[in-house]
């Protein structure tokens, strides 16, 4: 759809969405673009189409790279969540304070006429 005067009139209509500041890419879009970029780079280098041959050791190393990265990310995720779980604060003082407040609140409100 046309985005209005912000878009230079010389640009073809189908590009106006990408350029308009309001049509920022969704996160999904960003991921797909990123994966497409990395994926094609990997395919180009590791699968070795004719005309772009790296020495064999490099190709062999690159081939399983996606799987390695996935596993690495999995380990990172587990480690991070585990660490955050272990360091999740238990707010004892806050709970105690709240209990005190509740006692004071009930007493005060009763004094002021609240019938619970």
């Amino acid at each position: 759809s046309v985005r209005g005067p912000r878009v230079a009139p010389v640009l073809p209509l189908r590009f106006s969405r990408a350029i308009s500041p309001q049509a920022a890419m969704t996160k999904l879009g960003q991921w797909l673009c990123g994966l497409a970029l990395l994926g094609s780079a990997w395919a180009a280098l590791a699968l070795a189409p004719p005309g772009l041959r790296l020495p064999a050791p490099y190709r062999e190393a690159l081939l399983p790279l996606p799987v390695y990265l996935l596993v690495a990310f999995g380990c990172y995720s587990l480690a991070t969540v585990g660490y955050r779980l272990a360091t999740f604060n238990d707010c004892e003082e806050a709970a105690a304070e709240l209990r005190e407040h509740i006692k004071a609140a009930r007493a005060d409100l009763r004094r002021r006429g609240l019938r619970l």
Partner: protein
Amino acid sequence: MAAHGADKFSVLLPTYNERDNLPLVVWLLARTFQESGNNFEIIIIDDGSPDGTEEIAKQLEKIYGSDKIVMREIISVPFSSGTAYIHGMKHATGNFIVIMDADLSHHVSLYFIKQKEGNFDIVSGTRYKGNGGVHGWDLKRKLISRGANFLTQVLLRPGASDLTGSFRLYRKEVLQKLMEKCVSKGYVFQMEMIVRARQLGYTIGEVPISFVDRVYGESKLGGNEIVSFLKGLLTLFATT
């Protein structure tokens, strides 16, 4: 609009069956505001609770004054946080809006200080940073919380550490703008607000809060909740 230097805080409290918690929350809020010398009002938006929440709210109105406690009732079919806030905002006279659940009220004053410090558009409570935290949670609940938050951070990169927290302060204009743009329901709505706020370039400050488990009433974290969270997260991933 409030005059410069005369900030007024409107607290929106959507309630459903909060008969026991409501007076405590109101008392805590009123005391915090009075201690910090801020002008305030508390807007209670009740969804026709059958347990007498409305009656309690009316009593509180008598105790604190009808300029401080405003009672609104919605008996609409889809009572989501969204409709409650829209309804509540219509009657809000403050220039700052505080959104919170009626089951937690903690260290409200930190929010004002933080807002003044950085002149933020939004101040959000976080359980995951600083000395923020929880109380009364078992290991399973903590694991699910951390796991869900990790997933959210990876997928949405929201720039805030706690998206599903229930305690936020907004400038009134900022909240109005965000309400126009957000379409989700329930707590996914809260997540969407922060994500959109970042996209629109609003500044977000974070304050550690202690989430003490519900004093009365039950907390819900079943399989259904998890599934709906994932659905909401994926929807946000694909649409924002």
